[in-house]
């Protein structure tokens, strides 16, 4: 059980973010969730409340410094602390994804802003409370496209490479603390974003709900030794490493 644990998830109104909110809520955690779209966010908030979960749902853009300040501060005021941060919010950019030579510069910058600068800002804002208490877990959501340079994955791939670099550097800098930072590559999943990335996909995909156990493991006592790692969720579960 994660009773009294406060879990913050960005981009929690759909896909993996929503599945994580449900999974952590079910385990008894208090949730602080945000998303840009009001309607879907309120729907998730309602579902969580119906499950008896204590939830703070804030309409916010997780790459906007003012929104982040508001979201995190209100969470700390309401719950007094944040134990777990999952930097999940991200955008794909234009779909179908143009090759880099054709990539519109403003779109490129926007994808980097949301997918790399956003997690930097949210983490920087959440970290002080964790550092003072000397405990906390941060998980960044990456992608195989942020590990290997695949043709056609444009700004999304570049932004996830940046996020992986950010995670590695920050994990090193936190090595002398009890704060753990890892990244999870969820693998290909049946989400709106995947439909935009791989149009007319004709092979089976995992459901977001099928990989949430990796995250539950990472915040558990059993997973407390894991720091600075890149975890491929589907392989990790297949190997039963969370058992």
């Amino acid at each position, binding site marked *: 059980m994660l009773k009294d644990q406060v879990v913050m998830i960005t981009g929690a109104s759909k896909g993996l973010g929503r599945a994580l909110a449900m999974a952590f809520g079910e385990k008894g955690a208090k949730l602080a969730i945000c998303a840009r779209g009001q309607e879907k966010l309120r729907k998730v908030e309602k579902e969580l409340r119906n499950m008896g979960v204590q939830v703070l749902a804030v309409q916010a853009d997780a790459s906007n410094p003012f929104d982040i300040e508001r979201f995190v501060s209100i969470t*700390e005021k309401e719950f007094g602390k944040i134990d777990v941060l999952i930097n999940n919010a991200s955008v794909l950019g234009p779909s179908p994804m143009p090759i880099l030579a054709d990539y519109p510069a403003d779109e490129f910058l926007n994808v980097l802003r949301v997918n790399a600068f956003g997690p930097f800002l949210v983490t920087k804002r959440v970290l002080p409370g964790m550092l*003072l208490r000397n405990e906390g877990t941060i998980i960044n959501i990456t992608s195989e496209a942020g590990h290997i340079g695949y043709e056609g994955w444009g700004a999304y791939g570049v932004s996830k490479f940046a996020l992986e670099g950010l995670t590695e550097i920050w994990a090193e800098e936190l090595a002398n603390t009890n704060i753990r930072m890892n990244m999870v590559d969820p693998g290909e999943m049946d989400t709106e974003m995947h439909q935009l990335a791989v149009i007319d996909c004709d092979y089976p995909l995992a459901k977001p709900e099928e990989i949430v156990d990796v995250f539950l493991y990472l915040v558990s006592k059993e997973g407390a030794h894991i720091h600075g790692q890149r975890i491929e969720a589907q392989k990790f579960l297949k190997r039963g490493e969370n058992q």
Partner: protein
Amino acid sequence: MRTTYTFQLPKELNATCPPEKRGLRRDGVKLMVLNKQTGAIDHDCFYNLDQYLNKGDLLIVNNSRTIPALLKADWYRGQKFLKMNCEIRLARQLNEREWDVIIPQEGIQFGDIFHFSNNVIGKVTKVSEHSPFKRMEFTLGGVQLLHEIYKLGEPIRYEYIHQPYLLEDYQTVFGSIPGSMEMPSAGRAFTWELLEKLKRKGVQVASIILHTGLSYYLDDKWDHSPSLQFEEFVVPPNVIKQIQETKNKGNKVIAVGTTVIRAVETAIHTGKYSGWTNLYIDRDFKIISADGIITGFHEPEASHLHLLSSFVPESFLMKAYEEAIKHEYYWHEFGDMNLII
């Protein structure tokens, strides 16, 4: 006993911008070290703070975070529109919907209405000729009101600041729990890198919360005595224990700012670990929690100077301030630092 300190602060020594905007790192500001026993003064850089602390010493910081407490609203009496964009400074939260506020505008009456946005309206529920504060009840409370404050508010800036620096410039790196109307500025020069350096040396770091009120009521007729200023605090019981253990081992406890002294001394003297404090500390008050203090440089009339005189004889303090002026130390929230130890 209260003393009026007399010295002239040259205008050019007002820090008009954050150190990062004048080419320094946050922890690159000057540090004056004042020996409270001898009055001896050292001049150094804040990043070298570790040179003055020992393994086992305890540093206590205030992790209250600054909120954007300066708001604007349109003023109405009944249906009658009176003025647009009136300034309203939040001073302290009394309960879910009620706050004490400062409204520089003359002629405010009981029942006056202030429109902040389509989402929030404030009604004046108390006006007193004996108090600088007006009481205001908002149509929203709790988290909803805080959302609006963040969306509409600006940090409180004083007249020596010429640029509209952002709220993030008015934060310490460890500021976490929101609630201060003004930055607890004694902690501003710290960086996580410096804290890590101190930690490696074996210096302990603990935190308390004291949400600061307003340091100036915009009209000199009001008394700024801390005894009239109630501020909310939380001192975790383990911090009191840590202080005792540190002292028992012969190590020093260093308070980062007068807010820390105020909160911790209140907790020790009252036995209450949270609540409101209006503790006034001057040279006759015997501080039992801290052996030293890190603070900024204060104006002659600031009550902070009275608190500092409980650490160090006034003659040493005044000599140090003369020296600070001579060496062109910067004053105020973005300024240089003073370690009294």
